[in-house]
């Protein structure tokens, strides 16, 4: 059965310097290439850094080959499939937090972050436009769904991708560490790990989460990137707080075996959900 060698590049981007971050990507891609990685994921806004504020228009690029950074990453995608994060500018000058999936020199898919957190330390809604869709897409390895950070705090997002056929969920974030307790992990790490394990278990999907590390304006990013198998079991985890390239080989045959034992996908009733949602929306 098919095996897939994946890598999660847990990097610390330079805030607002696309050129330096591009080099950081190319270095990690080269390292991953030496390990024969077939699919390499980077964190949210890996090409720009996170706390951008008024830098958003300065670091943005169009999701097209004409963007120099995109062209270089497309060239690099000849050796392995890539998923990375950037600020996307559309032709009417709206800015999005986007993720691009590149494969064999082509842009396979772009996801625009739908849920922009604008509360507490987050102010994404002030600077950025929201995406409006969750779409799975085919890759040469599996059907994939991409979500960015706050997207997967809404459980309908991975669910929508699951119904659209995604067997491999690629989640990326720039998650600030917070929440002190006697526990050995920060509260935010625990929540995200629980969530990802839950999605893997309930959706019987592979769930990969690539988080960044480093500091920006007093925020710490905690890393701890994870890979959960369709049985909800942790396959691999990167260290907290440190830059790392996490590599693991996924046995895609596990999807079949788990779903024979636990046919949640077979028994799912989106028609019932749809009817109930329609009723709710009408009532509102």
């Amino acid at each position, binding site marked *: 059965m098919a095996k897939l060698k994946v890598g999660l590049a847990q990097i610390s981007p330079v805030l*607002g310097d696309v050129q330096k971050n591009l080099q950081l990507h190319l270095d990690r891609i080269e390292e991953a290439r030496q390990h024969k990685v077939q699919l390499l994921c980077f964190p949210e806004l890996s090409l720009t850094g996170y706390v951008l504020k008024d830098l958003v228009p300065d670091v943005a690029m169009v999701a097209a080959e004409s963007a120099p950074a995109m062209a270089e990453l497309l060239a690099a995608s000849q050796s392995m499939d890539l998923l990375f994060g950037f600020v996307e500018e559309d032709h009417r000058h709206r800015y999005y937090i986007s993720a691009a999936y590149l494969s064999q020199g082509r842009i396979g898919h772009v996801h625009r972050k739908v849920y922009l957190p604008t509360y507490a330390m987050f102010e994404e809604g002030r600077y950025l436009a929201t995406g409006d869709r969750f779409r799975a897409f085919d890759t040469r390895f599996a059907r994939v769904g991409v979500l960015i950070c706050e997207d997967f705090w809404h459980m309908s997002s991975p669910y929508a991708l699951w119904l659209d056929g995604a067997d491999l969920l690629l989640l990326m974030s720039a998650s600030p560490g917070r929440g002190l307790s006697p526990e050995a992990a920060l509260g935010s790490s625990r929540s995200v790990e629980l969530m990802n394990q839950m999605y893997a278990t309930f959706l019987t999907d592979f769930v990969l989460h690539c988080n960044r590390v480093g500091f920006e304006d007093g925020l*710490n990013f905690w890393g701890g990137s994870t890979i959960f198998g369709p049985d909800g079991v942790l396959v691999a985890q990167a260290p907290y707080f440190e830059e790392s390239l996490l590599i693991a080989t996924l046995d895609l045959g596990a999807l079949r075996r788990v779903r024979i034992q636990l046919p949640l996908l077979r028994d799912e009733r989106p028609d019932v959900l749809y009817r109930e949602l329609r009723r709710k929306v009408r009532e509102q």
Partner: protein
Amino acid sequence: MDIATRLLLNTEVTRRVLVAFLRRELERFGFKKAVLALSGGVDSSLSCFLAAEALGGENVLALLLPYRTSAPESAEHARQVIEITGAPSKTIDITPMLEPYFEQHPQMSDVRRGNMMARMRMIVLYDHSVHWNGLVVGTSNKTELLLGYGTLYGDMASAVNPLGDLYKTQVRQMARAVGVPEAIVQKPPSADLWAGQTDEGELGFTYAEVDKLLYLLVDERYGPEEAIAAGFDARFVKEVIRRVRTSQFKRMPPIIAKVSRRDVGHDFLYPRDWGT
């Protein structure tokens, strides 16, 4: 779970974040060294330990800045911290810098004199920041910041502050974990601005009590009524909320009167760590 338990933190995780924070924040602006005012109290001792771990003790300049009324015990405690951390130190008596002004204004209140001392220490500290080529590491904790219990442009001044999100009781927990001598952790906190001054005497409540209340109000977003229902005295709750509200200005840069389309205070919004 009782509130004191909820204030407990994992010292290893916290230490890791704070040490990495100091290292990274200095490095990103091209600094390898730090300077701080070491009073011999638990806050500055913890800052010194964390900075020494982040940068190497030899890269942290500890300034002892006594005034003639400072408790001799303070200097002794500071010396213990210097010895353990290996930080180079310098003692500069601020008395001769302050006395001429105090002599001209003999009627000054303790608060005014205390503010003068805190600001004189800041002047010396920032002068050494240039001379030593190191950034000023802050020592203000979350309790002080929220209560406004500090001197604006005095002890509240710093370039990077590793303690600003730790309540005083959490500072004590961290201090013990990193090896700050027990005598420093246990002694009654004092700004040491005049003889016999203690924080808790001046504030009128203990850190243990106010930390629990602040934790509920700030971190857990309790309303005043909910805090009272949780067992806190109504007058205490009211007084603490008053202190937090009336000291809000101390936690912010000076307010700018907006007249243009884009001004520094309101909508020229770049990250501090821009380009690093």
